[in-house]
């Protein structure tokens, strides 16, 4: 089946202004050559630590940010070049739910207005039709009809996130980006929202990009998972393969750092030393090499390309590269 959304070599550098006349002095390399594809009814989980570019990828896929290079294909049409009406038509099908349910809802708008607004903007419905569709969507996300006439401050965090989801769903999208939808919520409420997100997908066949830093949450909701480090995807695999046979040293370290809620299985948590380097001064070669326990000579100079090591499982690491002329020495180390 062709993907609903596909990114090809996306690049986004943010200029940093400085100096005497406010010239561009440096670039923050937020996203560097990211490719991914999401198929109908599928959830792709995107994990990584703060500042690795997860959210920027989400925004680029929706054209909320302009990419510097690369393409975003929605059913084969490149949406990065679309403007005005054409873009608005596409955006009905591409929606987003933000991280912080507090700041992503207008405190002075009734819920009816907030949730119904996408319909009006897109000219999909008006008047009583809007009201009845808002009612229907609120019921679908587990809220009551009379919640329509309330303001965001009257709701709990979990309920606000349900409102955010209702707003994203009302235009009947195919693809939704969830940007850390539960990181501001407590575990018991998080479980409710995760269940809702999965139920909605089972019912309507939505495709999701699920961005999170929480690995167990990502495992729970995703079919496939991509791991990001400093603006690049280092490993992508079906969820079971990623958790059971992680290949990239970063993925392995990330998985080992997660404290398990089981006192019988205590493990060393501080497996990775150092901090994530700044995305302004990206290390040469493999971006992970300064922190990698298995770094080799080659890692310092040559950036590894992503290769498929098993069906659907790709890794960007020299440990798994094709044997070349100098490959023999590498294996021994």
């Amino acid at each position, binding site marked *: 089946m062709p993907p609903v959304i596909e990114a090809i070599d996306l690049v986004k550098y943010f200029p940093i202004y400085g100096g005497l006349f406010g010239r561009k002095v440096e670039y923050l390399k937020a996203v560097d050559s990211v490719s991914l594809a999401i198929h109908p009814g599928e959830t792709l989980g995107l994990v990584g*630590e*703060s500042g690795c570019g997860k959210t920027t990828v989400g925004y680029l896929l929706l054209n909320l940010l302009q990419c510097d290079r690369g393409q975003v294909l929605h059913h084969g049409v490149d949406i990065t070049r679309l403007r005005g009406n054409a873009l608005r038509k596409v955006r009905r099908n591409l929606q987003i739910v933000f991280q912080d349910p507090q700041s992503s809802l207008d405190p002075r708008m009734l819920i009816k207005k907030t949730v119904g607004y996408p319909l009006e903007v897109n000219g999909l419905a008006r008047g009583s039709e809007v009201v009845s569709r808002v009612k229907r969507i609120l019921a679908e996300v587990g809220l009551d009809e009379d919640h329509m006439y309330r303001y965001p401050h009257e709701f*709990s965090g*979990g309920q606000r996130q349900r409102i955010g989801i209702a707003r994203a769903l009302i235009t009947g999208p195919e693809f939704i980006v969830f940007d850390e939808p539960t990181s501001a919520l*407590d*575990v*018991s*409420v*998080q*479980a*409710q929202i*995760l*269940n809702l997100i*999965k*139920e909605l997908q089972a019912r309507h066949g939505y495709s999701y990009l699920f961005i999170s*830093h929480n*690995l*167990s*949450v990502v*495992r*729970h909701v995703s079919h496939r998972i991509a791991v990001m480090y400093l603006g690049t995807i280092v490993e992508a695999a079906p*969820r*079971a393969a990623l*958790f059971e046979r992680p290949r990239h040293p970063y993925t392995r*370290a*990330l*998985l*080992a*750092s*997660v*404290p*398990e*809620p*089981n*006192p*019988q299985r*205590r*493990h*060393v*948590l*501080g*497996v*990775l*030393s150092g*901090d*994530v380097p700044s995305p302004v001064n990206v290390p040469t070669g493999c971006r992970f090499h300064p922190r990698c326990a298995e770094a080799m000579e080659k890692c310092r100079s040559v950036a590894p390309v992503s290769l498929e090591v098993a069906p659907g499982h790709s890794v960007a690491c020299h440990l798994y590269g094709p044997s070349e002329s100098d490959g023999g020495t590498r294996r021994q180390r």
Partner: protein
Amino acid sequence: MAEPLLSIRNLSVQFFTYQGVVRALEGIDLMIQRGEILGLVGETGCGKSVLARSILRLVPDPPGKITQGEIRFKGEDILRVNGKRLREIRGNEISMIFQEPMSSLNPVFTIGNQMAEVVILHQRVKRDRARAICLEMLSQVKMPDPDRVLSKYPHELSGGMKQRAMIAMELSCRPALLIADEPTTALDVTVQGQVLTILDDLVRRIGASVLFISHDLGVIAQLCDRVSVMYAGRVVETAPVEALFARPRHPYTVGLLQAIPSMHEERDSLMTIPGVVPRLIDPPPGCRFAPRCAKRFEPCDRVVPPLSEVETGHAVACHLYPGAPEDATRKSVGAGEDG
């Protein structure tokens, strides 16, 4: 058993606001032994941080007020000591690490300056000696290049380094008790791993007790010796960490453990706890968890269940468990009046 380092008995804290009296903590019983790490878990607003702050009398008054109870630290009731003694305890015998290292370090002083101040104040040493102590502490928290870090300002350090500097500062006077209020919540998971490993090593080495507050059950499971679970201003369960995770008794603890997605298996849906946390202005009269509890029965809406031992070291505040099989039975039934 030896006298505990800290024992809190029947502690209640209320906040007097325009909306009404918020009963933030009610009848808290808690104790920490020497050299142990006690975890305190609970969801947002359950009173974890208020409890931590009450121990150092840091609850702002007004609007907050400690309305009853006692907090005995080495036999001395902290709630009744005078200002001078309190200043000796704070930062020296009991110290505290907060969640957000950026907001607990002063941005206009160097790390060395802030660290040395603590040492000079409490240990009455000269500046050179203080500097040496600071260097030693920074290298103990595995700070790269401790010499240079001393002359840096907080904004020049990463989140993980700031939190390590905080740990170094708080442990520089070798306190008997360290209160850590969500110390790794703001950090990334790989950095959290580093910080927790360092914290664990260092407190075990200097023999300090820790009250470790977190909402992350994974962190609690990895680090703590015993755990207390809080819900809506009360302690609902206290147990050794293995017992709590293997045999949770309180329906809230059970629900909380089942709500975490697993790293090892795939489930279609997660167990959830229906409803929301009650408002503490008008909490339910009986068990505060009763309105959300699937196992609710007659006394729950009426009678507050006391915290009583069901096996050695494992105490639960729930009417499902009316006291221990043998000796402790009397204690709980007296207040329970079930039947």
